[in-house]
């Protein structure tokens, strides 16, 4: 039995002083319910989570106490992906046929400052100033540039595209296009990554209404099918965030294993994908993830970016809404924003940023601490 996504809702990412994270979550759920034409009291189950903004099931105080099964999910940067996977499994199993997936967050400004103990690490690691996600992403792309001939210009091209896409997305947080020159002149944060090459922790919420495909057409003439939802953790030998040491053996990154499993389950390949979202914590991450998800060979990104292949009008449009770079990263919501965007694209409702050519297959990929990846494939 296939799973359909029939409702999309979002509370704009960025900073919303007046609303708590949970309240932003409620805005997103109401929007998704309205989009699907479903009442909250019809919803049988929900999965949701946030990192810093509280328990998702507190949403029932806003939305109504209807006795539904509501499960909180916390799974690092794959929180949204894990919620969607849980909902996918609940419908696949036949136990339920109508549910909500929601992610929201509200982070303070500035880089994340995780507590080492929560990640199974000694306090010394944080005290020594080694536990910053920015450092990891910088060191991963530093080595990648060395091994695969990627240039600083390519890093700037990714950011230029992101902020351009943000500038034509009325829901984006960062709406000002930036030139490569401006990006390359911005402050160096963690060599080789500059200020405009990094996303910022932010606020925001996304909700999806999902149902069994057999009832989807009761609600909408244009359901999107969630072909697969996959989450994978790391293998021994992959180079991951928050690692005081790294093994000499080389193994596939969780992105590679999640991506491969997702393509297998969906019965398609990277060449079939019309519009995609790749984790762009920073410009370098997007470049690495193009190859780790199977969309090109390592090193090929330099030419693809020069040719504009990942722009909205390119042959593999990446992060059409501006991605994390233009929207910021509320951890609990970020992975679901990606799904929201590719669904909008498949419904041809993405306005000025709509990819041309009647897209039919969408792909989303999230990566983050502590070395976890989530991949979703949607079709219509």
């Amino acid at each position: 039995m296939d799973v359909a996504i029939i409702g999309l809702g979002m509370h704009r990412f960025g900073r919303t002083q007046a609303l708590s994270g949970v309240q932003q979550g409620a805005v997103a759920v109401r929007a998704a319910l309205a989009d699907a034409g479903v009442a909250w009291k019809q919803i049988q189950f929900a999965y949701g989570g946030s990192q810093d903004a509280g328990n998702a099931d507190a949403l029932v105080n806003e939305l109504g106490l209807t006795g539904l099964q509501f499960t909180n999910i916390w799974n690092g940067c794959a929180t949204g992906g894990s919620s969607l996977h849980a909902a996918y499994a609940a419908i696949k199993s036949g136990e339920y046929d109508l549910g909500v997936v929601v992610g929201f967050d509200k982070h303070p400004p500035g880089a994340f400052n995780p507590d080492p103990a929560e990640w199974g690490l000694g306090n010394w690691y944080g005290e020594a100033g080694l536990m910053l996600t920015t450092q990891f992403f910088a060191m991963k792309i530093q080595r990648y540039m060395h091994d695969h001939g990627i240039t600083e210009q390519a890093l700037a091209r990714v950011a230029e595209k992101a902020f351009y896409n943000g500038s034509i997305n009325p829901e984006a947080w960062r709406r000002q296009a930036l030139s490569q020159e401006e990006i390359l002149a911005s402050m160096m944060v963690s060599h080789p990554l500059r200020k405009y090459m990094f996303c910022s922790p932010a606020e925001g919420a996304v909700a999806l209404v999902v149902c069994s495909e057999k009832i989807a057409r009761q609600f909408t003439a244009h359901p999107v099918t969630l072909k697969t939802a996959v989450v994978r953790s790391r293998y021994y030998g992959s180079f991951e965030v928050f690692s005081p040491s790294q093994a000499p053996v080389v193994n596939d990154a969780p992105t590679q294993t999640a991506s491969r499993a997702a393509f297998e389950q969906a019965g398609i390949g990277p060449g079939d994908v019309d519009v995609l979202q790749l984790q762009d914590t920073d410009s370098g991450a997007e470049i690495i993830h193009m190859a780790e998800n199977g969309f090109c060979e390592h090193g090929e990104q330099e030419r693809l970016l020069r040719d504009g292949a990942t722009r909205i009008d390119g042959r593999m449009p990446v992060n059409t809404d501006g991605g994390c770079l233009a929207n910021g990263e509320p951890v609990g919501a970020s992975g679901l924003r990606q799904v929201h965007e590719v669904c909008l694209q498949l419904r041809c409702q993405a306005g000025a940023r709509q990819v041309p050519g009647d897209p039919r297959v969408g792909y989303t990929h999230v990566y983050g601490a502590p070395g976890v990846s989530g991949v979703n494939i949607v079709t219509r």
Partner: protein
Amino acid sequence: MSVQSQPIADNLFTWPAESPELLGSRCRRCGEHAFPAQPDCRSCSASDSETVALGNRGTLWTWTVQSFLPKPPYAGPAEPEHFIPYGVGYVEMPCGLRVEARLKPNTPESLRIGMPMKLIIEPLYRDTDGNDVLIFAFDAETEA
């Protein structure tokens, strides 16, 4: 009275020592190393490891420069105006394990993948009892 010094955590490096070395663990079943030392093996899941010295020389595998003051729990000097950027990198040790560490060189011009590095032990901060708290780091190996 002279300032006392103590390592930031036990079992990260030999101390006090004439020529300090990093400490890690080696799995007796599969031979894989870990840093810091841990009882269980990340590779083969066995629980049969021994603490071993990882040495004090290596080569730089990747690097960056930390250019802004980290938030707590960072324990170095807390005033932004006194913050001195520090290098961060993974140093490949003779056993092949790559250990993440602070680096003394702190400019892109002074850091290069593949450069030889040597272990140093340096104070990170002074604790409330007036003791220097020591952290391991790597400096560029100077030519003999």
